[in-house]
């Protein structure tokens, strides 16, 4: 599973990264996580509110940091 965190390096982006990793680990997922800070790549996903979470190429979260439980539901 490919996880990408989109954001220009704000505090919320780090929070989303940590929450996502925690969710993926508790689910025991095989994943590869990438942080995208380049605006061109962020815009290519059509994301206008950062931070955003992209799972296997699909934007799942934008502009907020969901709880670990909510993320688990998104990843499962």
């Amino acid at each position, binding site marked *: 599973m490919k996880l990408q965190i989109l954001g220009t390096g704000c505090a919320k982006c780090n929070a989303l990264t940590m929450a996502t990793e925690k969710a993926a680990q508790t689910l025991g997922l095989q994943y590869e996580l990438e942080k995208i800070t380049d605006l*061109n790549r962020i815009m*290519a996903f*059509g994301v*206008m*509110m950062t931070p*955003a979470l992209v799972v296997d190429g699909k934007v799942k979260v934008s502009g907020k940091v969901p709880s670990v439980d909510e993320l688990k539901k998104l990843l499962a």
Partner: protein
Amino acid sequence: MRQGPPVGLVAVLAGKPGWRKHLLWGCAGLVCWWLIYRSLAPFAMWFTYSLCGLAKESHLGTAVEFFVFESPKVLLLLTLIVFGVGIVRSFFTPERTRRILSGRRESVGNVLAALLGIVTPFCSCSAVPLFIGFVTTGVPLGVTFSFLVSAPMVNEVALVLLFGLFGWKVAGLYLVTGLIIAIFSGWVIGRLRMEKHVEDWVYATKTGEAGLEEKLDWPARIRAGWEAVKNIVGRVWFYVLIGIAVGAGIHGYVPENFMASIMGKSAWWSVPLAVLLGVPMYSNAAGIIPVVQALLGKGAALGTVLAFMMSVIALSLPEAIILRKVLKPRLIATFFGVVALGIMLVGHLFNWIM
């Protein structure tokens, strides 16, 4: 006034047990909120003059009473409003707003953008991706600026606090003039044809389609409201307290009508000065309003104070620095210049008619 939901609504909701539970909790919460809100004034009196034994009419006593009364009051108002607006905002996304604005003619577009700026979730930290997303998908530059001016300035926190502290007239004035400034600034920037002062790479950016359409049910929207409370109130409460403390100092120690000489109607230069002072000050509406209230109470003119407040909220140096990524200096200067001009006109207008 009689409280309670209309009978028709109850009948409709009675069919859905989930609804009834939410409604019940909501009503109970509102009643508690109202009872606490109502008892703040007597509590502040009792705390200041009985418990602390401060003399009535003394400087310290007045300042302490102001602080003990205003802090919980402002925080309570803030919590309720942020919760409500969090729910309203769950119906709007930047993507939806962009679709509405994309390809609009100017003028109509400017008006729509200013209005949508009120209800679309916006954080200055996302100003850059939002800007790129708008201008690369057919939203005219001027229309984008109307949105960027309106979104921070005409916000629900400012409006509800103004309503709670000064009444509907001041809140209404702020809403209407804030919208007019946003419409006007965006329109002017559109007329000036400043597209070449956007950084070159911006228009070359390929903006995709996020395709994120969340279907939210009511429990999710209510959670969104709570999230907003945790987020916004958790972030601003400290500034609010500082703002109220400054307000309390002004309230208790600055003599009556002192402000009239420097921020009163007769001093024409007070409005531009207020706008200039406001730019480096970076605060949110919640932090600045208690100061505004104290200034007004000491004889400052409404127009001058309104200009100060708008300048603090709408024009901020951090935002200029963030926007520098996508805008060349000329366009940033024009943006600030036009908005500042609009704010000054509003300030003078109010000093003149009130």
